[in-house]
């Protein structure tokens, strides 16, 4: 909560002014019963109708004033909520964009999305509500005490006496209730999981006729949800009747004690009437408290989740390293890396010169993509170092480092924007540059077939394109900036062999100065490259040209066999 409240700091003056206006307005609200008492006890005995009307006009004035001031204060509060949320959301989004791969894995993408969306809504809602309704209840309670004490200090003591009991109820219920709701939420998540599994696994479930089993699985989690909700609800239901009861008891006490006071001549009955009125106002205010109760507990959970992200320290800081003299453009030097405890990449060393091309081939999970992620510094190496032109990448500014690359990842994303913008990605490329890149990527033909060509708008995730078209756009994106280093991570798998071959040819001919790294499943995609790296469970088991590897590397031979050899039998 603290972390999020810090965002309100710049608005403290505005909030203070708003609060002041709100207090003024609320006191006007509270002034009415006071006038009521005055009329009953002091004006009526004067037996002047015109005087009553004058005081009545005063009440009307107070009412109008209360409304105006409260609205002004509420709008100021909404403005603060708007501005604070805008900044908070901005910072959160910026932070998310700067998280390292490891941190992203830790938070997971769906969870980050929900922190960005529903959690920030909860906060926005709460900041506004706290200022509008949350402060009103305390103002009314305290203001009520102040005003009533000018009327009748002894009866005010009754009012004050009721407070600790109310506070106790709020405390007890929230202390017990909030964990119950957290617990309930977890069970609801579990239930949603079962439903989701049944949707994604419908074919398997039907194939195995497991309907009844799944019904049982759902039934038990459904019962769990209901039980927990009952428990939480039964507890929360205490609040309103208990509050009502306490205030009504106070009200009765006022009548009794008031009777004694009037009898002894130290009070008037009109004051008792005013007191009863105050109790009614407070009753409403307290009801509002219980309502924002749930809002606050929700928001505090959200605030925690947001703060967790905001407080994440940047873990890929620039670290100074001495540059070394090197012939190589890209150089891996004894690189080791692990995602968890088990080593994932072990002792990788190689170097490629400017303009050369490297192919990486190996089993699923052998670490091909990880090498690229390390090179682009989405993760830091555990041991060893990666150098570009002799400079350790950890000492290069991240934006500058990544600016060297043109990359198409495996299953890379397309955005719901125009084709041009998808290739440009905010780099300010000219239409000509983009068009040339699409030609090289073999994408020009299908783009030029569209009515609006480069301005053609893609749907979300590019779902209005075929798999091959998507891949060609992604490759065009990688080529468009004329990058120093080109990386294609399994990004031509959906292309037919002919297009794939043409693509390789145009890269060879038109991007001579570019150092390229190509990850592929198909040997045919890498066999003509300058060097090929064969990975096996994170180890480098072969490095050389196609011909060399065919002679020396058994893993490479196996892959070759599996793709070109006439395997007997099936599979």
């Amino acid at each position, binding site marked *: 909560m603290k972390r999020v409240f810090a965002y309100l700091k710049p608005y403290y003056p505005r909030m203070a002014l708003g609060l002041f206006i709100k207090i003024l307005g609320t006191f006007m609200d509270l002034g009415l019963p006071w006038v009521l008492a005055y009329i009953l006890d002091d004006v009526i005995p004067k037996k002047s109708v015109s005087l*009553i009307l004058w005081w009545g006009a005063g*009440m009307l004035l107070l009412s109008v004033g209360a409304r105006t001031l409260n609205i002004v204060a509420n709008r100021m509060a909404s403005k603060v909520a708007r501005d604070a949320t805008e900044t908070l959301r901005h910072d959160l989004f910026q932070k998310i964009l700067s998280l390292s791969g490891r941190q992203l894995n830790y938070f997971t993408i769906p969870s980050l999305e929900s922190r960005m969306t529903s959690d920030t809504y909860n906060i926005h809602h709460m900041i506004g509500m706290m200022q509008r309704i949350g402060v009103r209840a305390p103002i009314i309670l305290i203001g009520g005490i102040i005003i009533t004490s000018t009327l009748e200090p002894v009866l005010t003591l009754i009012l004050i006496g009721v407070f600790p009991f109310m506070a106790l109820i709020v405390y007890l219920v929230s202390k017990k209730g909030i964990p119950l709701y957290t617990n309930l939420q977890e069970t609801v998540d579990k239930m949603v999981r079962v439903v989701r599994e049944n949707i994604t696994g419908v074919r398997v479930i039907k194939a195995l006729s497991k309907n009844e089993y799944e019904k049982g699985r759902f039934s038990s989690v459904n019962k769990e949800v209901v039980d927990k909700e009952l428990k939480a*609800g039964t507890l929360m239901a205490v609040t309103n009747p208990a509050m009502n009861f306490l205030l009504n008891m106070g009200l009765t006490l006022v*009548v009794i004690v008031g009777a004694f006071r009037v009898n002894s001549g130290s009070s008037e009955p009109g004051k008792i009437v005013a007191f009863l009125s105050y109790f009614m106002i407070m009753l409403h205010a307290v009801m509002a408290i219980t309502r924002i109760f749930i809002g606050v507990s929700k928001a505090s959970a959200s605030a925690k989740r947001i703060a967790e992200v905001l407080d994440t320290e940047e873990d890929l800081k620039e670290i100074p390293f001495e540059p070394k003299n090197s012939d190589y453009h890209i150089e891996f030097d004894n690189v080791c890396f692990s995602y968890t405890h088990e080593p994932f990449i072990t002792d990788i060393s190689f170097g490629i010169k400017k303009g050369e091309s490297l192919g990486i081939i190996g089993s699923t999970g052998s670490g091909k993509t990880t090498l690229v992620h390390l090179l682009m510094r989405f993760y830091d190496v555990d041991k060893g170092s990666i150098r570009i032109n002799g400079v350790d990448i950890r000492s290069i500014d991240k934006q500058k480092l990544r600016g060297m690359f043109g990359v198409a990842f495996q299953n890379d994303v397309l955005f719901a924007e125009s084709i041009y913008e998808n290739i440009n990605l905010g780099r300010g490329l000219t239409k000509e540059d983009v068009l040339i890149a699409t030609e090289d990527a073999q994408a020009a033909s299908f783009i030029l077939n569209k009515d609006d060509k480069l301005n053609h708008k893609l749907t979300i995730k590019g779902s209005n394109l075929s798999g091959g078209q998507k891949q060609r756009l992604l490759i065009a994106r990688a080529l468009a900036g004329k990058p120093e280093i080109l990386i294609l991570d399994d990004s031509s798998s959906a292309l037919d062999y002919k297009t794939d071959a043409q693509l390789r040819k145009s890269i060879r001919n038109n991007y001579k100065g570019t150092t390229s790294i190509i990850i592929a499943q198909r040997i045919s995609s890498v066999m003509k490259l300058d060097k090929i790296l064969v990975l096996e469970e994170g180890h480098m088991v072969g490095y050389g040209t196609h011909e060399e590897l065919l002679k020396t590397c058994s893993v490479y031979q196996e892959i070759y066999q599996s793709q070109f050899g006439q395997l007997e039998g099936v599979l």
Partner: protein
Amino acid sequence: MATNPQGGGPKISDKTDKPKDTGYVLKGLWKYVSHYKVHLIAAIILTLCSNLLALVGPMLSGYAIDAIQPGKGLVVFQTVLYYAGWMIAFYIVSSVLSYILSVLMIRFSQKIIHKMREDLFSKLVELPVSFFDRNQAGDIISKFSYDIDTINTSLSSDFIQVCTSFITVFGSLIMMIIISPILVLVMLVTIPLSLFYTRYMAKKVRPLFRTRSKKLGELNGFVEEMVSGQMTIKAYAAENSVMEKFGRINKETVDAYFEAEYYGSMTGPTVNFINNLSLSLITVLGAVLYLFGKMTLGNISSFVQYSRKFSGPINEMANIISELQSAMAAAERVFKLMDEIPELPDKENANELSEVKGEVKMEGVSFGYIPDKEIIKNLFLYARPGCLTAIVGPTGAGKTTIINLLMRFYDIWGGAIWVDGNEIRDVTRKSLRRSYAMVLQDTWLFSGTIFDNIAYGKENATMDEVVAAAKAAGIHSYIKRLPQGYYTVINEDGMNISKGQKQLLTIARAMLMDAKMLILDEATSNVDTRTEIKIQKAMRKLMENKTCFVIAHRLSTIQGADNILVVDQGDVVEQGTHKELMEKKGFYYKLYNSQFE
């Protein structure tokens, strides 16, 4: 008031419109509510009692105040204490009753919600595969969570609220008329004012709240897109241009929120104003009446309290109505799902398919996903027991369609499919489907232990059987190395194990089933060629003595098949052995050769 500006979370999607068919929804709800009639009647009686009791309170306090005469020693203590005693009694009983009522209503609504979810889920598992192909997972899930939750809130609170409001409004009005018919005239000013204000706000605010929902939706979409593509954004150092776009959308969103609140935040103060106005009018008029001896002090006090009680529900009414509307809309969505057409029931005299040999025959089969759009035309196919049929074709050509038909996930339009001489529509679905083992491209594992996941296909499978299947699939030693072995829980989406291992688990699951027919739908496309070789042994074993249908994208893997179906644009365009198809120099020939270019 269109939407409650203070309570209630933001509605992310704009679903809160009026339900289209109120009668339909009410009938559906009544079906559930009527199961718990006793609850309902008890609730109504309790509401009546507790509210009537609460209404007596101000009256009693008024009597007590009348006994407090101004001036020393004039108070009639006996009367004051008498009424105060009654007040305490009434308030205690009223509070207890209202607590019992709340609990009763929570139980009532939870029972209904429980039953509703149960029914909804039972329906879900009976729906045909086509339903899941047509509908988005998120949409279905939101029916289970968001929609049912909305109904729950409405059932447990709105219903009582409506009853309470009616009782309070009419009760207070009667009380006020009893106390002073002249003072009731004040209401002639305040009620029209409330009504006018409510209508004005509804008109003004509703579109603003709609815009707010729309903008929130846009922000959601943008964030989802960018967060999932964050690696690309970083790779192209496009953070600044993304931030700029985000800034714009963010601003629009908070502005829309503010616009709605700008008017929404008038409500509280205005409601108070109307209350204050009536207090002022009552005070002035009451004071004048008191002056002329037409009213007592106690009367004024009671009247003031009743007038507050009276105006409360009237101002709440608009809120409740909009809440009820969104609950009705939610209920409509839930009932719509319940009314989806389930899979056709098995024929009455449907046989159990037993001791399957595995002979499969398709005769003149035609089929399409969309009415009038036939994609499979007049397909003939014969698979002897133990032979292998491969289905090949470019991505998106419709290879899975044939599997959908074999498993009867979809019913064919024309022709017939026979298994061991039984038309598949003449046998029970369960026995038909269980005679196939299946390994799909999407490795589906659920959140449970590894044991549960392997044993999923066979009821009452023993640990020995599961271990044997795992050994045959070549995953036993991996499982043994896990901290909890076979009792390791696979978490959501199986994030803690690799794709290849997931695939092996599903192979083990298929092994355990011991079916005579096998379907492999791109079963090895998640694993590369080398891993494929490693699990080849497991696959071979799985395929032994089974009639196999294999969808594969790597042509090298199916050259030895007994029969190859070549699929393009939905339909089967060629059929034959590798040799025959190569000699034919048709589509398959081209497809095959393209990989060596």
